[in-house]
């Protein structure tokens, strides 16, 4: 993969990278450190990616690991009274939904973000989070139940 190709694909998924970093890390500085490490690591290991079509899921997995590493290195955990900061005020009902997602436990929030926001498949999420597909489904189910008051029955897995 050339640097140009790599750059294009990274820039194309910058929203995804930001969403994932927001899902795990509270501070903007940590998110930026995580994405930098992620990009460097993906670049260094790009030759190990055998199928370019898996690039997006692969980079997302690397970013998740980097975010967790930052949590672990700093001894940080995201607790319920230290919610990730709100990105920007919005005028529509999405704010309520977003806040609800960001207040969820991490084990529910990440599958929700990856599945509903980023559109990854259950199999891809299982691989990213290194948990069985059944666990992904159960966490989505539980997460969805928590969102149901806001979303009604709109979401199905």
């Amino acid at each position, binding site marked *: 993969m050339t640097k140009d190709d790599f750059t294009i694909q990274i820039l194309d998924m910058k929203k995804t990278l930001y969403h994932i970093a927001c899902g795990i890390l509270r*501070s*903007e500085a*940590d998110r930026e450190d995580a994405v930098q490490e992620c990009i460097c690591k993906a670049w260094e290991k790009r030759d190990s990616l055998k199928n370019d079509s898996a690039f997006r899921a692969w980079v997302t997995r690397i970013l998740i690991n980097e975010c967790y590493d*930052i949590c*672990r*290195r700093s001894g940080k955990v995201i607790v319920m009274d230290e919610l990730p900061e709100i990105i920007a005020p919005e005028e529509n009902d999405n704010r309520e939904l977003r806040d609800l997602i960001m207040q969820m436990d991490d084990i529910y929030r990440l599958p929700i973000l990856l599945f509903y926001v980023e559109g990854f498949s259950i199999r891809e999420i299982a691989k990213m989070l290194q948990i069985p597909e059944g666990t992904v489904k159960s966490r989505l189910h539980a997460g969805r139940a928590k969102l149901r008051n806001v979303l009604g029955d709109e979401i199905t897995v």
Partner: protein
Amino acid sequence: MKESWDNLFGEVPASFEARINETLASLEEKPKIRRLRFPAGSLVAAVLAVAILGGTALATNLFGLRSITVADPYATPEAAGDVIALQGEPESPEFKANAEWMDFLSGYDADGALLAQASGDTALDGKYDLYPSVYTQEMADKLEEIAAGHSLRLHTSLREFSSEKELYSLAGTGPFLSDCAAINGYVYEDGSFQADGTSVADKCYEFQLGRYRKGVFSEVTLNVGNADAYEEWLYTTASGVDVQLSMGADRCVLLADLPDAFVAINLLGGTSGNTVFMPEPVSREDLETFADLFDFAALN
């Protein structure tokens, strides 16, 4: 559906986008050293396995986390807490070497000027890539000096793994994990390794595991918060090995001292039931159940 969800988080902040662009632009220029807020090695916890040799379990003394705390070169107001070394009990050469190294790092390049100068520097011998704290020749020399002073070797290579089978093969151990759903990490040339794993028994346990062969220098440490805030006791696992269990609000640490290796496990959950990785509270019984998932004897 996705379009509406995209609106949830608003625009990507300019600073985040700038960091992406900056990183992409520097990829070929600075492939080796990156700007890190926490340049230390990873915080993999080490499981101390007391080996059973000839059917006889070694006794692990209850030394407590406090006794293996070391200086924290990377302490910040937001990441304060006690840091422990994961290579041995307090009197071991491996622990003493780690403590000496952390003392050195704590007083070195406090303003980061040398780190900034070192960015992109490829003059250092590649073997120091395995010691991510090292970024100047002076540090490399000090590392060698400390290791030699305690008659320890330095690691020379590592290989990554992403399955139990690969781990056992690379580490040269027999199977030692039960109910493991996923595990990945890297193994050094001598069979020392660091891993992140998930085991699903009565509940889902997220953990980090480190095996440190004796006679080798490692700089891995773990921030445990207040080292005095742990309930600690010795537990004899189902495999007959004594392990020191330390149970805290947000994490638990399992340590065991084997004849040829020191093993530590960092369970990413505690009594608060309020962590990113394990949202359910961990009880004494849970922790002992978790300890029984490891055949520590096989980790020697």
